[in-house]
């Protein structure tokens, strides 16, 4: 199989939309992921997965299904590669978190931005307008969603 060179960073709201059919972005998330799955290496990090699982658990109150998802993230390295954010990345996220002018980004959002900068990932799949318009991601970033 050909190695996927292109990388895309996936935000928590995409995972939430994908797993929650009542989400307004559910169909869009499904469609885009089906399109990019074979072309891109799909990346995320543990903060974003934590956010996904918490929101889904609170919304659905379905421990069983949310646990299956959690296990999927931890035990299947394909197709989503979940980065366990190292301290260096956490500090970069902290810097972004502290430097933001308006209180728009959560710490998990900041880890996404830090990961994109750190690993030179130029494509980000998110539905979050605050990330898309973030001044920390100015040059050459492409947003899906």
């Amino acid at each position, binding site marked *: 199989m050909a190695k996927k060179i292109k990388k895309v960073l996936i935000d928590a709201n995409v995972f*939430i939309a994908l*797993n929650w059919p*009542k989400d307004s972005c559910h169909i869009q998330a499904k469609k885009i992921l089906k399109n990019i799955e074979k072309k891109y290496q799909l990346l995320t990090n543990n903060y974003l997965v934590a*956010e996904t699982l918490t*929101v889904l658990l*609170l*919304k659905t109150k379905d421990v069983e*299904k949310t646990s299956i998802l959690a296990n999927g993230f931890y035990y*299947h390295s394909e197709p989503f590669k979940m980065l366990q954010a190292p301290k260096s990345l956490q500090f970069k996220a902290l810097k972004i978190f502290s430097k933001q002018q*308006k209180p728009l980004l959560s710490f998990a959002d900041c880890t996404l931005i830090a990961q994109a900068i750190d690993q030179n990932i130029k494509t980000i799949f998110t539905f979050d307008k605050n990330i898309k318009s973030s001044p920390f991601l100015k040059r050459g970033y492409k947003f899906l969603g």
Partner: protein
Amino acid sequence: MADFIRQQIKKPLKIKVKSIKKQKRKKKQNFLDYMLNNPITGKDHMPGLTHDEILYGYTYNKKGEKVWPKKSKKS
């Protein structure tokens, strides 16, 4: 002698065929396929709330002002 040689060739072949068959039976589960085909259905216990409102209780508007979720009337 010929039979012996035939057997020796067959043995590793048989083992290989068996292992390939086993591999085929054990089809790798794709997590994305699972996600796409098994979304969580059921009641929304936090209707009308954004993810930020669920996680932190409030959200921020474009101006950076705190926005609290509208209270829903209890029936």
